[in-house]
């Protein structure tokens, strides 16, 4: 039973530490994303189901190795307790050995060797067993989460009918569940956007934004997969799973964030 749903963006730069030093726009986005998780818990969710685009539809274990080394080779887990001068120049002082090497896993148990909700390192792991970026971003919001969580990849190319099935299956779980959907709008909103300008992008994003803001599951289900693919909308399949999971009742939508700080449309919206 779904008690609340939220959608958050899933760009690689939202993975902790991947921007290197702090980036104001990213901090703002992540703040809204954290608020969305809180909203799910406030609705009485006893588990969190994270849904995000993946190469193929499949579940991942909660401590699946993350994709950080593929996205940002040489990346290190951020040192949150590293001291540095106010201007940030001298981030040189070292952390005691073993600091932050242990964190809460799903359900609050201790997961050795994972930082934040960061999972194991991915060295030597087959690429299909690495968590997709979307799910890794979702998981990164769940450090310290008091309820268990599951990670579900949805094939980015899944047709609408399959998304409908997957969404309806999610609804059937016995426990009150919060759905955390990781999805992005178009990456072709302007000439400076990562995918350059596609004239259809702005209109398509506007339809997505309106559907999210009105908790209009039907409108999300009507999104055309081919049009979304052309406009580099990375969230279509995940949103259609969300819509199918939530189409059985009306929801109150709250838009916590709606911006495109780097040329890609991001939303943080809760349905409660």
């Amino acid at each position, binding site marked *: 039973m779904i008690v609340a749903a939220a959608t958050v963006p899933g*760009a690689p*730069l939202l993975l902790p530490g991947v*921007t290197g*030093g*702090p980036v104001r726009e990213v901090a703002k986005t992540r703040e809204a994303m954290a608020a969305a998780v809180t909203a799910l818990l406030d609705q009485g969710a006893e588990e969190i189901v994270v849904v995000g685009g993946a190469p193929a539809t499949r579940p991942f274990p909660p401590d699946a190795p993350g994709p950080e080394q593929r996205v940002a080779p*040489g990346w290190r887990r951020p040192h949150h307790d590293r001291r540095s001068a106010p201007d940030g*120049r001298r*981030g040189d002082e070292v952390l005691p050995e073993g600091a932050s090497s242990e964190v809460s896993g799903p359900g609050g148990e201790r997961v050795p060797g994972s930082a934040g909700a960061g999972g194991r390192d991915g060295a030597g792991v087959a690429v299909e067993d690495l968590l997709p970026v979307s799910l890794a971003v979702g998981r990164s919001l769940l450090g310290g989460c008091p309820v268990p969580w599951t990670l579900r990849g949805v094939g980015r190319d899944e047709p609408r009918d399959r998304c409908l099935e997957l969404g309806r299956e999610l609804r059937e779980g016995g426990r009150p569940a919060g759905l955390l959907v990781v999805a992005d709008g178009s990456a072709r909103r302007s000439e400076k956007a990562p995918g350059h300008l596609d004239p259809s992008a702005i209109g398509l994003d506007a339809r997505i934004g309106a559907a999210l803001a009105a908790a209009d599951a039907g409108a999300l289900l009507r999104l055309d997969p081919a049009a979304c693919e052309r406009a580099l909308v990375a969230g279509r399949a995940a949103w259609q799973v969300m819509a199918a999971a939530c189409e059985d009742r009306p929801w109150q939508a709250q838009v916590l964030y709606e911006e495109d700080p780097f040329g*890609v449309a991001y939303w943080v919206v809760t349905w409660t």
Partner: protein
Amino acid sequence: MRLTLGSRTFGETPLLMAIVNRTPDSFYDRGATFAREEALRRVDQVVAEGADIVDIGGVKAAPGGDVDVREEIERTAPFVAEVRERHPELVISVDTWRHEVGREVCQAGADLLNDAWGGADPKLAEVAAEFGAGLVCAHTGGVEPRTRPHRVEYDDVVADVIERTVALAERAVAAGVPRERLIIDPAHDFGKNTWHSLEVTRRVDELVATGWPVLVSLSNKDFVGESLDLPVGERLMGTLAVTALCAWQGALVFRAHNVPETRQVLDMVAVTRGVRPPARTVRGLA
């Protein structure tokens, strides 16, 4: 490898030691910060520009007018006290080989004694131990302080550097200086001709491999000038090139005149080595 200076502990990110001369005759600045006010202004400036350490010196390295112990103390100790008051967190180093000077500057608040003349006065290590200060163990090939290299030969200059600096460090440990407060320095140009300094530069990784933190003092030196046939005022690019090479090989402390330029080079090398994250990267990641 850990380095503790004052109350701060450092890891792999390179540290910039800015040179502040209280001398009327040093080769690069030619007395620009001999006056107290100018020297204080220089300290404030280098701190703002990203220096981690200031290295205060009261006697020029090259031969020249005699500066006795009393004069050297007068040039350095009261100044150290003033800098300590203005910058409580700053790591303060003093460039001296004399234990009497070391004692006075440690009492005034110095954290590190930069013994650039390679243990010429063995009592300096005892002073460092007594005050809990750090010590730089430099290689000079055994020459007297304030002398120039003349017809120097080594079987293997890097082996000699390692043997002598590590021996100095172990001697300091035996004298009571904590291991984590010791640094070794090949001392480019000291007891070395340009060929020797270049050999040390390309093999700095062998010094790093000893496990002792390595300081390099490259700034505007003659080996850079002779390599490029350039006078003192035109050696910045050459200095930065060898700075990058030493940083890449893992040297930890860089003694320098030109702080913003050196800071930028060290940061870029540190980011490339992966010991410092990029300042802000979003390209291709949205």
